């Protein structure tokens, strides 16, 4: 055995080296806090707090809707519901385990609880409680979590880059990763009507609205072609469908025709639609997800196509299997391959 000294190990950055102030191409300072969970800096129409407002609409019709949070109502848009229905809102404090357990208890008594926190805390801290108190008993608890994947520059403590991998292994659990405000609104109603447990990723604050212009209607468990294309098939989930649509526009201008298949329900996966679309010959299939390359949409689609004997040219756009850097979100998206620029560059190398 090697005679190694016992001592502290160094982290990946030379943290004692002074840095210059980072600026964007337009000369603006790039800050982390301005970017937290906000994807609205794209010149798009936005909707404020689509989840909180949808939950209020639901609560107006249904007495069984209750909301719980673990000290993050303002950061999951649940405060909109809390203000409108204070007697149906439970502040559970900074205690994710009991929030999830209590949601299970409320569901046992006939209520439909929406429990909110950040995706890191639900997936990492409360896992045992979600799987045993909720999933094993198939209770209708809806776990709705902000900051999925890489939607904050706060570093690994807040970046839930592996939440889908964690939750895909959980029996009974339905997993939804909505793209935009339109879909969050529709999905909130759909998961409330669904009788089982659901994990839904959430974009909060001012959320871009892009799917409305395509006449899109969310259906739980269904993948839908947003538009067709003969050269490339993007299979995307969450906000990466926004990026896929933008990348398709950019590539169209260069003569590459890209279809976009949006897969908002990760589990159960709409394997039939995915097989049908991927089997159409001659198209490069590219999966896109706001999640680590391990255990998310890309691996799920690849495995399904292998089982079905469908072998298109294939690539996956996802986050690397690493702890990601802190910083400004646009910088990080570009650095880790989720920006439109990075996507189009990658696709061109595969054509």
């Amino acid at each position, binding site marked *: 055995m090697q005679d190694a000294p016992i001592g502290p190990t160094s982290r990946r950055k030379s943290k004692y080296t002074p840095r210059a102030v980072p600026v964007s191409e337009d000369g603006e300072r790039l800050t982390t806090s301005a970017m937290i969970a906000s994807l609205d800096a794209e010149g798009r129409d936005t909707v404020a707090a689509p989840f909180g407002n949808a939950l209020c609409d639901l609560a107006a019709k249904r007495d069984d809707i209750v909301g719980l949070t673990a000290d993050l109502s303002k950061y999951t848009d649940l405060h909109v519901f809390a203000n409108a229905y204070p007697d149906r809102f439970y502040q559970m404090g900074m*205690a994710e*385990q*009991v929030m999830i357990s209590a949601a299970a*208890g*409320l*569901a046992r*008594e006939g209520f439909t609880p929406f429990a909110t926190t950040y995706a890191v805390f639900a997936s990492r801290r409360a896992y045992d409680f979600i799987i045993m*108190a909720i999933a094993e008993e198939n209770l209708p608890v809806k776990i709705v979590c902000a900051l999925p994947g890489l939607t904050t520059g706060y570093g690994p403590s807040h970046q839930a880059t592996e939440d889908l991998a964690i939750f895909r292994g959980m029996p009974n659990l339905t997993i939804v990763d909505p793209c935009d405000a339109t879909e969050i609104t529709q999905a909130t109603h759909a998961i409330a009507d669904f009788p089982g447990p659901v994990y839904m990723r959430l974009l909060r604050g001012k959320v871009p609205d892009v799917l409305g212009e395509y006449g899109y209607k969310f259906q739980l468990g269904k993948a839908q072609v947003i538009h067709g294309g003969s050269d490339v098939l993007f299979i995307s989930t969450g906000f990466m469908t926004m990026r896929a649509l933008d990348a398709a526009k950019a590539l169209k201008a260069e003569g590459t025709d890209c279809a976009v298949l949006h897969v908002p329900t990760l589990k159960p996966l709409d394997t039939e639609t995915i097989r049908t679309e991927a089997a159409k010959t001659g198209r490069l299939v590219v999966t896109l997800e706001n999640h680590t390359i391990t255990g998310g949409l890309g691996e799920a689609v690849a495995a399904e196509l292998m089982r079905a004997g469908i072998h298109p040219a294939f690539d996956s756009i996802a986050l690397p299997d690493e702890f990601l850097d802190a910083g400004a979100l646009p910088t990080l998206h570009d650095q880790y391959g989720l920006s439109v620029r990075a996507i189009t560059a990658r696709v061109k190398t595969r054509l």
Partner: protein
Amino acid sequence: MSTETQHAGANVSLARRAWSIRRLALRMAEVQGQGYIGQALGVADVLAVSYFHALNYKPEDPEWEGRDRFYLSIGHYAIALYSAMIEAGILPEDELETYGMDDSRMPMSGMAAYTPGMEITGGSLGHGLGIAVGAALGLKRKKNPAFVYNMMSDGELGEGSTWEAVMSASAHQLDNLICVVDFNDQQADGPTTQALARGDEAPKWAAFGWHAQEVDGNDLDALVAAFDTARTLSDPRPRVIICKTQMCKGVPFLEEREITHFVRVDPSEWARAIAILDDAIPA
């Protein structure tokens, strides 16, 4: 209304109920050849007082909306609860011999989907009290006056989630929540008091805003008094009854064993243990 009068055999004493629970548990463990018999024998008196004095329920309708909910957080105590529910008429006695077998409604660890009257899936320790918090909130929302009882073990006092639930119940003033802690000072690797729970438990719960009682969990009169206090107290605190019990209570040659978390019993010893109980049938 005393719930003792609601159930069949109303004249049967609590001592006789506890004796029956012990005997049923021994018979179940004998079928399987093993089991958490130390816990079942130890907690039999607490379950007798729960099911034949304190709890409001209809044996023929385990999901009756007006029932008091009894959560078994400690899934491996299922053998004890099955015995109590057989004695209460919720489960049929002739299914006893299926305990732990394929396709049985009485698996080794308690699960809600398997067994009538088993409210939650326990077994991952530190879960029951948090679920009970939610159920107690839900009952209040529905203006249902039922209580939620959560039975947990002293070992679960080491789980951080227990203390999240303790704080939460207090913050939400859950006076419809009664936690019953079986304190037998025995967890898998040794005495609980040599691990995280050092034995001064009631003051901790009281400091967190609970009404806390500590009783001899094998003293039926003391248990009746403690449950009555917990049920009739008129203040907004959640209530805990810490029951100090003796593992393997009632079978002296097993009580003397050093390792009682999972008791090894030779095939010949089951009959001996049952004979010891049968020599002392209470009135």
